[in-house]
């Protein structure tokens, strides 16, 4: 990267110099690209801008570069890394408040942009930049308050408020700034962010206005969230949390499985993927299942003998009864999901025995070796055991494409 810097800044300079009316758009586009190159690109761009700026300082009005520099500067100002870019670009020259005033006047920044410019400098490492940024900001805020100019956007409002709260000397402006704010209609998001910063009186005035439309919105948002929560529910993890007892008998297992989302191939694949990894060692300290049943008001369960592994026969039988039309080939295809992994041979055998129990068809080989899965690790773990286990567990004999 470092050797590139020299040639890039030459490139930028060339672009500046080549600017004329016919190539204006393409040059602008190319220059804007540097901003998207991140910090380094932006620094080079700003340095070159500032250089040009000094050259034309005495005769600002006559240069056709002026609007271009201004729009580049604006673009940079929007970026979150502006304060770094700025302090890196100007490190050689001394920054004074006067300089800031000149720059922003020459670039015809709006009051709002000036504010953002000043604020960006207030955290600088260099004392000079910090102080002049601070004073510059103060001036802008005073001006804003004095002229009662309205703020058109909520940009920088948070920064301004935090800035004003920083010291005693500044906090005297808070009230007048608040008054300005009360005239502004913020959108929902900025309202949210600003909530803790605004004064109580401010809140009171907004409260009623808020009440009316808040309810409508809230109501829908909660319904959305609720729907989303239901979609996020993961049957497979739920089974693990409830423990092996879910598979004690078919009616109970059906009860558990049917209490949530409908059983689809995707869900079943996830259930299979999960149970083969948890076939031993699940703890059931809280007697989770019966507690769960009674707490959702399904009555108490009679005592069941403790299980220490999944009863897959019961599980598969329940799935078949609940979802008779399910395609087991599709289930196997859906094993390609995030988190699927065959840890050992026992898990592999369990998976295959589940499939045998569920379906009479030969194992759908195309699903596991027909294409590369998104979860390649999972696929490899499957194939590894598919090859190594004895043929009575898993066989490739029915494969359509055989080596001759």
């Amino acid at each position, binding site marked *: 990267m470092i050797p590139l810097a020299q040639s890039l800044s030459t490139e930028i300079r060339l672009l500046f110099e080549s600017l004329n009316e016919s190539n204006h758009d393409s040059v602008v586009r190319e220059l804007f690209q540097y901003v998207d190159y991140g*910090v380094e690109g932006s620094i080079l761009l700003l340095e070159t801008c500032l250089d040009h700026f000094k050259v034309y300082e005495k005769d600002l009005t006559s240069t056709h570069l002026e609007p271009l520099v201004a729009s580049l500067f604006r673009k940079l100002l929007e*970026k979150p890394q502006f304060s770094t870019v700025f302090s890196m670009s100007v490190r050689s020259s001394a920054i004074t408040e006067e300089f800031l005033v000149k720059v922003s006047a020459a670039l015809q920044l709006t009051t709002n942009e000036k504010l953002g410019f000043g604020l960006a400098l207030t955290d600088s490492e260099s004392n000079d930049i910090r102080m002049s940024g601070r004073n510059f900001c103060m001036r802008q805020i005073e001006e804003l308050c004095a002229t009662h100019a309205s703020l058109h956007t909520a940009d920088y409002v948070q920064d301004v408020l935090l800035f004003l709260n920083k010291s005693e000397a500044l906090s005297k402006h808070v009230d007048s700034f608040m008054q300005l704010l009360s005239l502004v209609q913020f959108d929902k998001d900025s309202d*949210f962010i600003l909530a803790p910063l605004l004064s109580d009186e401010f809140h009171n005035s907004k409260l009623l206005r808020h009440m009316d439309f808040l309810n409508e919105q809230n109501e829908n948002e909660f319904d959305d969230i609720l729907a989303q929560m239901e979609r996020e529910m993961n049957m497979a993890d739920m089974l693990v*949390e409830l423990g092996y007892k879910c598979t004690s008998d078919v009616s109970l297992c059906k009860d558990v499985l049917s209490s949530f989302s409908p059983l689809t191939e995707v869900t079943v694949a996830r259930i299979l993927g999960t149970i083969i990894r948890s076939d031993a060692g699940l703890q059931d300290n809280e007697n989770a299942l019966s507690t769960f049943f009674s707490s*959702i008001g399904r009555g108490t369960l009679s005592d069941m003998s403790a299980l220490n592994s999944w009863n897959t026969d019961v599980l598969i039988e329940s799935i078949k009864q609940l979802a008779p039309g399910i395609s087991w080939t599709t289930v196997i295809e859906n094993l390609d999901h995030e988190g699927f992994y065959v840890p050992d041979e026992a898990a592999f055998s369990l998976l295959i025995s589940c499939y045998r129990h569920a379906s009479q068809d030969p194992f759908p080989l195309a699903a596991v070796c027909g294409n590369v899965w998104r979860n390649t*690790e999972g696929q490899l773990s499957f194939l590894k055991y598919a090859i190594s286990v004895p043929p009575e567990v898993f066989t490739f004999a029915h494969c359509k494409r055989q080596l001759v």
Partner: protein
Amino acid sequence: MFNIAVMLYHLHEYEKCFSILENLYQSIEPIDERVAHHVCLLLLDVSLVCHHASRAADVISYFERVGGNNLVSQGDSGNVPPQQLTNLVTKSISAPSNVMLSSDPINSDQIVSTNGPESPLSWLKVHLYKVWILILTRNLKAAKREVKMAMNIARGKDYSLALFLKSQLEYARNNHRKAIKLLMASVSQTETGTSALYYNNLGCIYYQLGKYQTSAVFFSKALGNCSPQRKEKPMKLLSYSQDKSVLFAYNCGLLYLASGKPVLAVRCFQQAGSVFFKRPLLWLRIAECCIMFSEKKSDIDVKIVGRGKWRQLVIEYWNSRNMVQLDPNLSLMFSKSCLLNALHLLDCPYENLNLQPNSNTYGSDQLGAGLGQVTSNGEAKETKVGNSSGNPNPLLQSSVNEYEGLCGKENQKILQAVLADLAYVYLELGNAVKALAAAKCLLRLPECSRVYAFLGNIYAAEAYCLLNQPKLASEHLSSFISGQNSSNTDLPYTQEDCNIWQTRKTVDLDEPNSNNAPMLDQALPQGGSDSWFLKPEEARGVLLADMAAISAAEGDMERAYEAVTLALSLLPNNPEAVLTATYIDLVRGNTQGAVLRLKQCSRVRFLPFLPGTLAEKL
């Protein structure tokens, strides 16, 4: 004034309600006795909701001073004057930090009026409030005794409140099975109105047990239970008040954050924001959601350009990825704003950081970060409490004092997390100047823990790297290096340092990242047994990777190679360490080795090249 306060209470505007009642309470003497009584009860409720433990303790002692007769006479006044609310409170404290919303239908007027002139019941109420305060202030031993007394008084009558609180107490003592049992016992006696609270509390308990799916089921039931009240038209004040969805939303958010679903979590937190916007922890959590979301996309994409002999591998420059953020509510910019809010609420002016160790300054609107209760604290207090059981005020007072100390400490922790996150976010945004300021501020904290000191130094070093000052960067790292050899590093912190955080269970998601913006997948806790931080070994790996990057930037390839090899042995799948190693290999002219490294890393994806993207050629 009182009526306004009641309205605000129902609208979940607790802080505002509190400040009005505060004023009334200051001049309580001239107020009519009955009104005064109601003011006090509501103030008690509100101060508990807002965690103003000391005010609540004051009110309790006021009740005790005014004496039992008053309580009885209050009990007699079954007919409440119209200007006083018919239905004072069906309430729920929600403690955003403690997942548990202690739902607590301590309901002044209802109980008083339905149960007529029996004075014991009023005393019961006072007892229950005391239990509540004690749980809030985490004086669990005393709370247990108080609950027992309350149960004795309540014998044969309405147990459910006492059971509800007792369940909460067991929850606070991490005795989750018992908490479930008590909770279920309480609900069988309670009317249906509290079922949402019941589900919510079950959700909290299961969350603590690490059973996130079950917990989600209960939270969704709790929210679903509130939906008829939400939908009621026209809106009635009472049904608005009974709709605790906003409070449950915080819990849901925390649950989804912990289960690694930041998109949903952030929506929940935003709903909760309408009530909890004064709490720094809420803002920290939202920021964590954004950070988590931005981390999801941190795999290395290697583009394959050309064919055969001319085939080349191109790696995209990381910075350009971060520029595009689709969802404004999950962007790092948004998270920056949230963190700044948290900082503001923590009262930390981040330039002239004047943090007194004296935590009382944080007194009021802060909340505890600890999810788990510190039982040792309860035990410590036991000795002081021992002989004062006849006169409970000193007990409450000492609990309150302890609690305020605790809050201060917790705020310190939140502050550390906020500053570290802020430094991280600024780094990710490419704003090294601000990142440096945040990191330095973190390092200046007098009580900065070793884990965060490590993070602070790492972030500061990275910021200096971005500012092209590798010298200063290595100064920050050098504190972790022992001896001359740069590869000879100790563990930057020990497992115990992590454990300090764990027992208090302050969720934290940020992590060290090195010069090239590395990020490590961080396992979130499952049942609290895994570390939420980088393991010390991994932290050492990150440190070494950083040093490798710095050495590489200074041109010392030998040292860089040495450090990165060690780093990779500790963090084989860290994308940034792999990239650094690849770079070093290339500079050393070992092209084959570089390609091999990329192939070996499971987080590298090889993709066909799509024209039009900026690339850094390797």
